[in-house]
């Protein structure tokens, strides 16, 4: 089998890899780079638990072939913290108790990060619209929406 050489910038670290041509970005992150924050749930793009940022845009990593994003910058939940400080979204999710089983959380936070990057002060309706990209089967979304609202206040 022919492999494909790719260079990725994952969480500000350049990595050179040889991957299968039919390997998804999610598989590369989890199985080659041990970045298990992005989760596999539906594997069909419906649930959003595998969401990561590709060149700043939130995307389902289960639907992306790694060779497609050769040269791209990837940010996963592991790359959000700055030094010892967690990202305001991560702090707000803890403070507001927006986590129950936690499986959807990294996808939720990465999707919310995409929203706050393009719109620093989203309305509640905008938060709900964006967050509806992701499925949570525990919380009923109320605390997740509150957490994103809280984080948007902290981000200047």
């Amino acid at each position, binding site marked *: 089998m022919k492999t494909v050489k790719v260079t990725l910038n994952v969480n500000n670290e350049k990595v050179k890899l040889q991957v299968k041509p039919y390997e998804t970005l999610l598989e590369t992150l989890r199985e080659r780079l041990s970045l298990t924050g992005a989760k596999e749930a539906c594997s069909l793009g419906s649930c959003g638990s595998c969401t990561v940022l590709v060149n700043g845009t939130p995307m*389902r990593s289960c639907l992306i072939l790694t060779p497609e994003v050769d040269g791209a910058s990837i940010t996963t939940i592991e790359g959000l913290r700055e030094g010892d400080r967690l990202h305001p979204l991560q702090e707000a999710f803890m403070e507001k108790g927006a986590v129950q089983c936690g499986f959807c959380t990294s996808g939720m936070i990465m999707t919310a990060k995409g929203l706050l990057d393009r719109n620093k002060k989203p309305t509640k309706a905008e938060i709900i619209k*964006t967050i509806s*990209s992701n499925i949570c089967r525990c919380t009923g979304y109320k605390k997740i929406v509150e957490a994103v609202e809280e984080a948007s206040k902290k981000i200047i």
Partner: protein
Amino acid sequence: MILPSFEYKKAQTIDEALELYKKYNGEAFYLAGGTDLIPLLKHRLFNPKAVIDLKGIEELKTIKRKRGNLLVGPNVTLYELKENPEVKENLPCLFESLNATSCETLQMRGTIGGNIMQNTRCLQYNKSLEWRTARGFCYKMGGKTCNVVLNARSCFSNYCGDNAPALMTVDSKVRLAGPQGERTLKLEKLFSGDGKDPFNIKPGEFITEITIPLKETKGAYEKLAVRGSIDYPLVGVAVTVMDEVAKVGVTGIGPSPRLYEIEKINKKEIDKIAGKAYEDAKPVVNAVLTPAYRKKMVGVLIRRVFARIEKGGSR
């Protein structure tokens, strides 16, 4: 879910993509956003030797205004097209259908060309290989029966694209490139009406441009779905009113979207078209709501869209 093995090729030009298609003797799939294709491959509904990525082709990514038309590259994402000021201002029906497509994250990945070319769906078709093997293959998988309608002679899978009907109501055209050259056709001519093979395209052809006439229009899109987000239309109705003529596109029931025209908009004509669309809709037990309900909702949604347009688009 693991993908089947295939080779990955990235084309930089249209010609290169066609060359690659020939090189693999047609056993290749074109890839744009992948939001439709990758799940189909994961379910082993297709097993191509190669996937040809079209995202490297710059000319397929642009939106241009030329001689009163909006020329949209098929690789423009649904989100980019939705955010385009011309679409927001002049094409309210298309704006609403784009906005109703799946969710924001998938709109940022899915492309307008890929959305038009979305394969038809059926509860018995979009399943894993194991599930389908146990059930037995249907027409669309190369079998000899329909697993939904006993003794049916054709495939009843549903075309679930949100945006093709909206584009049809504004007289859009698509340009195709293929091994035998280029051709342009009205968008509605792209659909074959056969669920097994839903598009009138020759092997190796792909969309290279979508032409949307830019006129001031009124319009709206209504969709019946179980969830407010990340869901296919179980019925979708797109209406555009241009120069007092209304065009109505119906999607979500049957293998191709249908187009109707009302020359003089009044209650009687709207009821007539709603009745005609109701009669034409032949839903079967292959989606998550009952056929009777979906059929009834065709007429309901048509009347609802017209009522909204009369109120200036508001709900």
